[in-house]
């Protein structure tokens, strides 16, 4: 796998937001500006650290850092390969706009418990980067569990009955998933004696097919909870009670993507395409996620609460990613992995918009948005761009990943899956376009101001920024962050050649 560089940069990337988290807690409510400058500072430093890793990784190198031995043969180890880097870059990049947006959001709504909010947020980011850079399953699990716990205070942030219920549901689902993962990883370790990720998998030749299929089921169940694969998706819509920036970054990028990331890691780096071909379970897996894709799309149609609709759209897209990977063909894989990044940019824009609308007008149902586009043109324009992307229309970046997914589905000669992908695009159109149409063209509700009256600048700028980048990455997939090259490299790492 090319040259290995030993560097503590991945560790620092993880630690920087953890340190910021404690500084935030120490600074407390009294010095708000100082506290929030910690967040922004950490976000910038983190981005710088992660960004500096792109170049060596694209040159075919792997960055490794071993902290301490945990078990014989397994260390607390960070290893940055192309796939991990993709997730890391997405999370680190999007933290910057989210930080600004968060500040605008909590100040506009005058939220309580802001220190706890920013503390948990920074911890989540730390854990997400840890997940991205984990060099083996155990390290991954450790950060995955930290992520679980750090998200909980954000979910229950409002402390009302529905928030607490949502938090409990979240914990029940994710902690059970953690236990299942622990079991799965334990079995893996007892079979193979190692947990280090290897492109193309390391489980081949260990254990009986029955046990391996059971193991795969456990893994997918464990990671699938966070990735919202049906029937484990139930917590995600309930967790939408969280403040919108949380939904935006965590339930579109960090947390759910960590689940998807885990699934993909297991499929490609633990089992490997060849083993899955041999076991013949990839069709079942793809079938399950394909069902999720369609079902989530249908359910989204029925939601009137905007954030819940977005949540189901998230479930739909996450399943699409896993579908792409489990098709095991080169193009489908490229599309799936690329969709991790693309979906993140688009979905975070959508959530930002939802948050901006809520902060300005306290409206959170689709049916209340009539004519609001005239009052908040920037917000609605961004919303329109992002939803076009999710429907797969060029020139937004969603088009590219869906294109590759379709190519991959054709490659595998499973026309069913092509059909699924296209159906999901149709469903996307069906549940997004009415919002845009009503927002711009329907007669405004009486309480909508006739003039342009946007949310605060700290909220509008980030959402314009992410929308803009969604378009930029659609036209130049290799702009700035080299997403396309990274994805190509990741696929090469797995499939070889």
């Amino acid at each position, binding site marked *: 796998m090319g040259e290995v560089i030993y560097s503590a940069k991945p560790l620092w990337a993880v630690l920087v937001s953890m340190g910021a988290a404690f500084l935030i807690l120490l600074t407390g409510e009294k010095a708000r500006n100082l506290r929030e400058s910690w967040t922004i500072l950490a976000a910038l430093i983190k981005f710088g650290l992660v960004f500096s890793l792109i170049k060596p990784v694209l040159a075919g190198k792997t960055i490794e850092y071993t902290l301490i031995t945990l078990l014989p043969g397994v260390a607390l180890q960070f290893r940055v390969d192309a796939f991990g880097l993709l997730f890391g870059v997405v999370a680190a990049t999007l933290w910057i706009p989210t930080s600004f947006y968060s500040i605008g959001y909590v100040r506009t709504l005058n939220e309580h418990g802001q220190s706890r909010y920013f503390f948990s947020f920074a911890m989540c980011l730390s854990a997400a980067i840890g997940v991205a850079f984990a060099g083996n399953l155990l390290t991954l699990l450790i950060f995955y569990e930290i992520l679980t716990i750090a998200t909980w205070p954000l979910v229950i942030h409002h*402390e009302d*009955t529905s928030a607490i219920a949502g938090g409990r549901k979240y914990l029940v689902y994710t902690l059970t998933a953690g236990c299942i993962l622990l079991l799965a990883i334990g079995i893996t370790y007892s079979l193979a004696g190692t947990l280090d990720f290897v492109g193309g998998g390391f489980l081949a030749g260990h254990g009986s097919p029955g046990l391996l299929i059971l193991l795969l089921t456990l893994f997918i169940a464990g990671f699938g909870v966070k990735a919202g694969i049906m029937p484990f998706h139930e917590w995600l819509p309930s967790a939408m009670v969280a403040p919108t920036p949380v939904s935006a970054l965590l339930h579109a990028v960090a947390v759910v993507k960590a689940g998807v990331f885990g699934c993909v890691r297991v499929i490609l780096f633990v089992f490997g395409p060849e083993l899955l071909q041999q076991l013949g379970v990839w069709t079942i897996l793809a079938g399950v996620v394909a069902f999720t894709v369609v079902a989530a799309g249908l359910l989204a149609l029925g939601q009137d609460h905007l954030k819940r609709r977005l949540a189901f759209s998230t479930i739909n897209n996450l399943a699409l990613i896993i579908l792409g990977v489990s098709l095991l063909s080169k193009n489908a894989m490229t599309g799936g992995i690329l969709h991790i990044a693309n979906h993140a940019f688009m979905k975070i824009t959508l959530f930002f918009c939802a948050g901006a609308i809520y902060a300005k007008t306290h409206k959170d149902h689709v049916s209340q948005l009539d004519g609001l586009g005239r009052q908040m043109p920037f917000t609605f324009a961004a919303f329109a761009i992002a939803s076009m992307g999710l429907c797969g229309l060029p020139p937004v970046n969603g088009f590219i990943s869906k294109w590759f997914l379709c190519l991959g589905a054709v490659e595998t000669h499973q026309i069913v899956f092509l059909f699924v992908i296209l159906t999901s695009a149709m469903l996307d159109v069906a549940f997004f376009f009415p919002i845009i149409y009503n927002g711009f063209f329907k007669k405004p509700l009486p309480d909508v101001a006739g003039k342009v009256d946007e949310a605060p600048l700290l909220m509008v700028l980030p959402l314009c920024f992410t929308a803009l980048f969604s378009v930029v990455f659609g036209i130049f997939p290799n702009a700035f962050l080299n997403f396309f090259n990274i994805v190509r490299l990741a696929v090469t790492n797995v499939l070889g050649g």
Partner: protein
Amino acid sequence: MSDQLPALIIVAPLLGAFLTPIIGWWNRHLSHPWVLMVLTIPLYAAYSSLFKVIKNGPFGYNLGGWAPPWGIEYRIDYLSAMMLVLITTIGFLAAINAKSAGNTEFKGKEAQFYTLFLLQITGFLGIVITGDLFNVFVFLEISSLSGYGLIAHGEEGAPMATFNYIIIGTIGASFYLLGVGYLYMATGSLNIADLATLLPALYHSKMVLVGFAFFTTGVAIKMGLFPLHIWMPDAYTTAPNSVSTLIAPLMTKVAAYLLIRILFTLFKPDFALSVVPIATILGWLAVAAIVVGGVKALAQTDIKRMVTYIMVAEVGYIVMGISVMNRAGLTGAILHIINDACMLLCLFLVIGAISFKGHGREIYHFQNLNKKMPLTMAAFVIVALSMCGIPPACGFFSKWYLIMGTIVAKQWVFTATLLASSLINAVLFFRIIEKAYLAPPEDVAAGLDHTEAVIITRDKVPLTMIVPILISAAIILILGPLSGKIIETVIQHAVPAIF
């Protein structure tokens, strides 16, 4: 000096205990600093013996200069050195903590309290360090007797709980003594190392089998293994807080140490593997302990009582690790001895601080507690996460090894029990965390933000309480990532080579 280390570990606290009443009689405020001063000696000696063992391997110390089978030998190997460090560290932290709580709980009787406190620690240390079966009994009794005295001084139901403890504990100790008697009749020796060489020829002798049965039953009683745990919840719940802080984390662990000694040093592992079905019995008892402990803990609203039932389950963990009879399982059991002792220490310290500030122990009393005692509750959250097995706290790692052990042994029911139990723990602790950290939903619904709803003053927890709490919480966090190191340097040598 360094040759006399093993003797120093016992003699220093013992002499310190003899002198404490005099010091206390002279000036009762001096007894606390005196105890701390005395405890630094075994603390130092324990750490240096651990380093000595790591460097040079196990060593013995012949008391009075008599060679082992005739005289009493103190034997320090990897396991006992580790236990010594554990006991002295926890004892020291508990001693620091004892000041504020102890001075109110035992007003006017500090001297006696600290004397018993030192004797308790001496007893634990003696059980661990000695290489002579009868000497173990003597130290077991020292620790039990001082424990009886300390616990009986607790709240309303304490004397009755203590009486039950005395009866059951004496049955346990007597069973242990019977076991010693049977083995002595079979071999004529009392020295563990000597017996270990003599016993293999006699494994099928009925005397040895019965002796073994009584040994394990006696130790199981002291350990509080289901169904012999009946004395434990009452005794530790009603005990004074500064006492349960010391005894609850250590008594069960020392007994677990004895069980490991009996199963793997006194008897060779193949005795348990091929002669008696002890592993199976212990394993299923452990499953029952975990299930019953967890369910009973769920039923409690008093947090101290809840923790005692969690202890029942935790003993089940340790025994389960022993019962699967493989390297991973036993490593997990030994690691869990350390981790669980630290977690329980922290829990009881937190409970002690909460009670000291006059808050109730029922769950509904935890309302808003994070505003009143933020540091204490932060420590509580760390322990809670550790108990649920969330990394990087130490509870995760011992659970990992235990689960590995059950997987290797292909005992899927055991695995399932362990996993289910960590979920039960999550329920147990998160309902308290929710209470402590969240405003009541009624207030939120009524539009009262909890910063406005109640004007909350911070409780000033005395330094002698908050420092041990923070140290123990830090230990929990540090032990987790260090567990690989601990296993590499200590525990892997303590596991019998045939595993």
